């Protein structure tokens, strides 16, 4: 325990593709003690596992070198500790990359604590009878195609890593709120029996884990929900006290807004039953949370409740599931939609004549029906972009979609323009299952000397 009165935890990234500079602003001007980078979406670990199979040195988050290069000078200078899941499918590789960045910046030999144990692919492969949560089928149905299986670890093992004293902690798959809860537990000595505090910390982690989503990003609506100076939107932090009181703020002088409305949207985001948001650390209940505006860009969080953590870890299993192919071409002006629909029919017929079949196939008229389906009563737009996409175990069949759509230039209705190159991508699908805790062996190792 640090004996500190308040710990300030900043949120520097909420997805692998998140913006870079707001984290630097937090480090330089936010007066933070911890900087958390959350960079793993549901499917990212599967993708990075794939990268690791191509190159054993890779498999950590591709944005790790750039993010750390940007913030390390400020963080090392000010003693800000970094906690991140950018280790992805190769946390040790990520730690080595982090140390390399520090050395190249002239910051010396920085030890990095690494959290291991989330990779449960060996355990899972030996238990084909495990049930897939989404469809109730045994894991056996996808067993030969599995490329990754990762358990969502909790704050306890991140605390262990923080206890080593290493300034940087890298993990693979952990639950997003756990990245934020861990520094609180570490600083204040909270245990899993302190349920109200664990609940507060988890609720705060949930508010912070998507960065700008709580400061006006994914929120602004012109004339209805205006956001000032959105271009320079700032990232949030939480001020946490030993008794579990939480106040959310954002980088001083940054753009955006932080108020009860932005916090409410983020508090409910990606939650199903609000009385039972299951994390590895607790079962959170947000139905008694109170959000109060304390000052401009300051929101107090109170009243989070929780039940004890469950005896299982949620595991995301990544597996290959064929290919998605797609193509696009545009039509404009008179009869634009009629020509686009005709083109779609021609492409479908040509794919059929070539003997290709698809597990799933989709025709979008971008500008009319690509986002919210076809209600049949939308006004016809002046121009329309035809998009066709299909999924198939056969790569050639997937490629043929974009090929035939592009051929609309010469072999379809008049006035087709701007077709894109045929696109094909490997499908890395994910399914979930639950694994008893005792089967998962977590471990902390330190790269470099402390």
């Amino acid at each position, binding site marked *: 325990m640090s004996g500190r009165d308040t710990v300030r935890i900043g949120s520097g990234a909420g997805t692998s593709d998140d913006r870079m500079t707001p984290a630097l602003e937090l480090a330089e001007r936010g007066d933070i003690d911890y900087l958390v980078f959350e960079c793993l*979406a549901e*499917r990212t670990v599967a993708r990075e596992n794939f990268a690791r199979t191509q190159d054993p040195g890779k498999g950590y988050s591709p944005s790790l070198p750039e993010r750390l290069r940007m913030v390390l000078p400020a963080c090392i200078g000010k003693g800000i500790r970094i906690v991140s899941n950018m280790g992805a499918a190769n946390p040790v590789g990520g730690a080595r990359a982090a140390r390399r960045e520090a050395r190249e910046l002239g910051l010396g030999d920085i030890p990095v604590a690494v959290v291991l144990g989330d990779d449960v692919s060996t355990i899972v492969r030996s238990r084909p009878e495990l049930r897939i949560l989404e469809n109730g089928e045994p894991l056996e149905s996808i067993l030969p195609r599995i490329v990754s299986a990762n358990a969502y670890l909790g704050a306890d093992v991140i605390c262990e890593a923080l206890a080593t004293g290493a300034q940087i902690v890298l993990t693979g798959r952990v639950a997003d709120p756990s990245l934020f809860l861990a520094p609180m537990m570490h600083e204040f000595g909270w245990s899993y029996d302190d349920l109200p505090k664990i609940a507060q910390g988890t609720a705060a982690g949930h508010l912070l884990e998507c960065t700008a989503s709580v400061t006006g990003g994914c929120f602004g609506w012109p004339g209805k929900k205006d956001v000032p100076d959105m271009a320079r939107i700032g990232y949030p932090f939480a001020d946490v006290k030993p008794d579990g009181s939480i106040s959310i703020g954002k980088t001083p002088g940054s753009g955006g807004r932080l108020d009860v409305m932005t916090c409410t949207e983020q508090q*409910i985001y990606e939650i199903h039953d*609000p009385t039972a948001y299951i994390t590895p650390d607790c079962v959170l209940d*947000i139905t008694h949370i109170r959000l109060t505006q304390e000052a401009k860009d300051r929101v107090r969080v109170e009243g989070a409740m929780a039940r004890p953590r469950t005896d299982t870890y949620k595991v995301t299993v990544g597996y290959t599931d064929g290919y*998605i192919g797609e193509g696009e071409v545009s039509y404009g002006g008179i009869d634009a939609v009629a020509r686009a629909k005709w083109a779609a029919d021609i492409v479908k017929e040509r794919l059929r004549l070539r003997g290709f079949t698809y597990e*799933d196939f989709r025709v979008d008229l971008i500008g009319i029906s690509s986002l919210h389906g076809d209600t049949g009563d939308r006004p016809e737009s002046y121009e329309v972009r035809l998009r066709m996409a299909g999924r198939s175990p056969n790569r050639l069949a997937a490629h043929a979609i974009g090929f035939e759509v592009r051929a609309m230039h010469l072999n379809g209705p008049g006035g087709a323009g701007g077709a894109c190159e045929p696109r094909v991508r490997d*499908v890395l699908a994910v399914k979930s299952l639950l694994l008893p805790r005792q089967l998962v062996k977590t471990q902390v190792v330190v790269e470099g000397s402390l």
Partner: protein
Amino acid sequence: MSLRVYDLAHSRTGDKGNTANISVICYQEKDWEFLQRELTPERVMEAFRHIARGPVRRYELRNLKAFNFVIDNALGGGVTVSLAQDIHGKSLCSVMLGIELPDREPTAALR
């Protein structure tokens, strides 16, 4: 123009697998009971009929002046396999906001 959810509330979509969750958050506390009465899971399912198979579950968060609608089979099989452009369904909150609601003070004469 008739009353829409947009006039009373704001909204955000989240995704988990093939399930979307769409919050509906009242601007004003006083509108919560009206939405509780009128924005039923059935009405929401009807608005999403051409997008999602459902079912729709509705959770109440009175403390946040809000509701959480959880819509199953809404994301084309889920982020990783969906053929949709908006694989996360982030734009679906606009469909929720566009739902038309009955007039707040129905006149007896209409009957």
